[in-house]
């Protein structure tokens, strides 16, 4: 089992540790609901160093990146970032990731559970004059998320972070350590992600925790992060998106730029569009506190029409929420469905995403 550069901090903070994607990670420090609340109301700090970082450089880097992803990296100005999917030729999803246009290279930030697979996939599909490096173990990554994140970051970095736009990054320094500061996150709130040399992780963690005392900043584990992303209807790889789902089915067609030229999976997506999308990933609200969980079947008038891929209780909205694939035309907002929860049918309603509409994230 691997450890992130912040492992010792989690133990000191008495976190409950779990095995996640080959890493020993904190699932919670105090209470998952308290940690969610910190991010929604003030600010939370998470160790996301388990995420993978793959660097692509060389004269053909842009063409190559655009060949393997569905979004259009040619639109990225220096230091800008974009969210994208990466596909198999059949249209299924290899991973969802962030692409940064950094000086002389593109940095791909991938899911922890997929980093080896992604690295192999990218190498197998290498084209042109590019160099591909797996930098996962060299970086720490912290996420500072919440409406008060700016207050905290302002205290620790040398420059003024308030004019850093959403999905842009910048080179910064914290206690004279070089870091990449990025206005990104996966919580729906305003926030920053900090990337840096893994040996400096603890020092930066301490600086950010110290700076957030007044704001009531709390360390947040993976449990809270999973709820935060679910409240926003953001996909989790392995649950909501997999090699057997396409971005068109998953409601991620905004990440697919057909007009940019050829890319892996384009043909399959065009064919799927031509044939018509048969199912859609939707948000579902369930009254009460029973939780629809991954794999639970969805019915309409006795007919099985889909299954749940993620579900939990939303402490922010005080109701159970879920995501799942539903056959058309039952995917429409307001559509009433039945979900089988341990031998009992429970009524669910297709709900427009995000579930949580009052996030502070700068669009």
């Amino acid at each position, binding site marked *: 089992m691997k450890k992130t550069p912040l492992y010792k901090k989690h133990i000191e903070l008495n976190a409950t540790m779990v095995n996640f994607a080959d890493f020993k990670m904190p*699932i919670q420090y105090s209470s998952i*609901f308290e940690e969610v609340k910190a991010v929604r109301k003030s600010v939370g700090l998470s160790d996301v160093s388990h995420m993978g970082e793959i660097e692509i450089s060389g004269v053909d880097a842009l063409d190559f990146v655009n060949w393997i992803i569905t979004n259009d990296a040619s639109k990225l100005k220096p230091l800008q970032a974009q969210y994208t999917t990466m596909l198999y030729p059949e249209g299924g999803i290899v991973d969802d990731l962030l692409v940064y246009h950094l000086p002389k290279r593109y940095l791909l930030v991938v899911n922890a559970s997929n980093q080896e697979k992604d690295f192999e996939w990218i190498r197998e599909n290498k084209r042109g004059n590019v160099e591909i490096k797996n930098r996962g173990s060299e970086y720490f990554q912290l996420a500072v998320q919440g409406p008060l994140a700016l207050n905290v970051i302002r205290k620790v970095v040398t420059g003024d972070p308030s004019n850093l736009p959403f999905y842009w990054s910048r080179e910064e320094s914290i206690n004279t350590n070089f870091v990449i500061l990025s206005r990104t996150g996966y919580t729906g709130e305003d926030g920053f992600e900090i990337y840096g040399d893994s040996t400096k992780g603890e020092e930066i963690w301490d600086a950010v925790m110290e700076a957030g005392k007044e704001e009531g900043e709390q360390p947040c584990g993976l*449990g809270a992060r999973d709820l935060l992303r679910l409240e926003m209807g953001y996909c989790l790889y392995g649950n909501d998106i997999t090699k057997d789902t396409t971005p068109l089915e998953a409601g991620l067609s905004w990440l697919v730029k057909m007009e940019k030229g050829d890319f892996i999976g384009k043909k399959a997506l065009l064919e799927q569009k031509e044939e018509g999308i048969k199912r859609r990933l939707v948000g579902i609200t369930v009254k009460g506190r*029973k*939780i629809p969980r991954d794999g639970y079947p969805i019915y309409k008038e006795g007919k099985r029409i889909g299954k749940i891929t993620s579900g*939990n*209780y939303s*402490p922010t909205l005080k109701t159970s929420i879920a995501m799942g694939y539903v056959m058309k035309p039952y995917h429409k907002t307001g559509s009433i469905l039945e979900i089988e929860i*341990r031998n009992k049918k429970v009524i669910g309603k297709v709900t427009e995403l995000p579930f949580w509409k009052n996030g502070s994230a700068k669009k």
Partner: protein
Amino acid sequence: MKILEDLLYTEDHEWIRKENSEVIEGITDYAQSELQDIIYLELPEVGAEVKQGEPIGSIEAVKAVSDLYAGVSGKIVEVNSELEEKPELINKDPYEAGWIVKIEPSDPDELNTLLEPSEYRELIEKEE
């Protein structure tokens, strides 16, 4: 993980406290930390007859849903109604405010089949 010395335990991570002619049952500190934040409980009706080792309710939590088993056979004489509004009491205080049911045992000898604190400690050390 907190294990109290004056309680008995089940292999399913319930604790049992003898109190006069009744027993009080809840889930252990280990169980609550494994389940994570508890969201709601399905509990038996007062008056229901229950059998040792059989499910009498369920606990829905962030990580998973799990059954609650009767630590002893007997009649349910009280359920902790505070948990309806505040299921988090189980997370915060599993051995006191987070108690779940009170049972009037029909066979007091069953208490001898439960685990002593040292035996329960061994059990969770194995699971960890």
